[in-house]
């Protein structure tokens, strides 16, 4: 039976759990399930930065997340409060706080923790990567 998943990602792009989260998400869709939302929180918001540069002999997991989200038109929400305090800003927030740089990659949206709870209410399954 096809199920609806919410996936939360709590660690930065270089963390093993973030790679596992991506592989899990890919397997979820490959198995015919639906991903209602991916929610990035705590250091997971750093994955949404467009400024991550990885050495050529390393996997670029942040880039792979972007590609995966774009290919499947997933709803990818980054917690706005967690993002602001870690320097991940979209156009509106950079203007609001008068910062030079906009670094939120285009496939992501900044929004509140309400979006996590909203996703959970729509889902059948919830899995979180990178917590304590």
């Amino acid at each position, binding site marked *: 039976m096809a199920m609806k998943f919410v996936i*939360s990602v*709590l660690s930065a792009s270089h963390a093993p759990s973030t790679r596992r989260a991506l592989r899990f998400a890919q397997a979820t869709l490959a198995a015919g399930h639906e991903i209602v939302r991916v929610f990035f*929180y*705590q250091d997971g918001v750093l994955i949404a930065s467009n400024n991550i540069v990885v050495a050529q002999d390393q996997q670029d997991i942040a880039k792979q997340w972007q590609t995966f989200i774009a290919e499947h038109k997933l709803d990818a929400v980054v917690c706005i*409060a*967690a993002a602001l*305090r870690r320097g991940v800003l979209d156009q509106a927030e950079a203007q609001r706080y008068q910062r030079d740089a906009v670094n939120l990659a285009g496939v992501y949206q900044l929004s*509140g*923790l*309400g979006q*996590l*709870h*909203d996703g*959970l*209410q729509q*889902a059948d399954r*919830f899995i*979180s990567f990178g*917590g*304590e």
Partner: protein
Amino acid sequence: MIKSVLLISRQAPWAGLGAAEALDIALAAGAFDLPLSILFMDDGVLQLLDKQQPQTLEQKDLSANLQALPLFGIEQLYVAQHCLAQRGLDHRTLAVAAEVLDDSQIQQLIRQYDYVMTL
């Protein structure tokens, strides 16, 4: 049907953003009137201690936020007995009232919720 969340908070109040960001998840659930309870485990039990002096570490005091949880509709706080015992703590000395659970009660608690999130 409304889905419920058990949030397991495992980080010490001074160990970075973890404890505060876990609490924010609870407050957001309360704001939307969604059922959420918190279980404090491991160093997370230290969040409940009385007479903390976060200002000496140039930190904010989280305990006021914890005490505000009932105002947000988050009524059920639980704390793991074995995690208190490991740290030589007595539940009677906690600043925030939480129901003390042994390991089998924790197993039962986890089964009662639709989702479990650990931070």
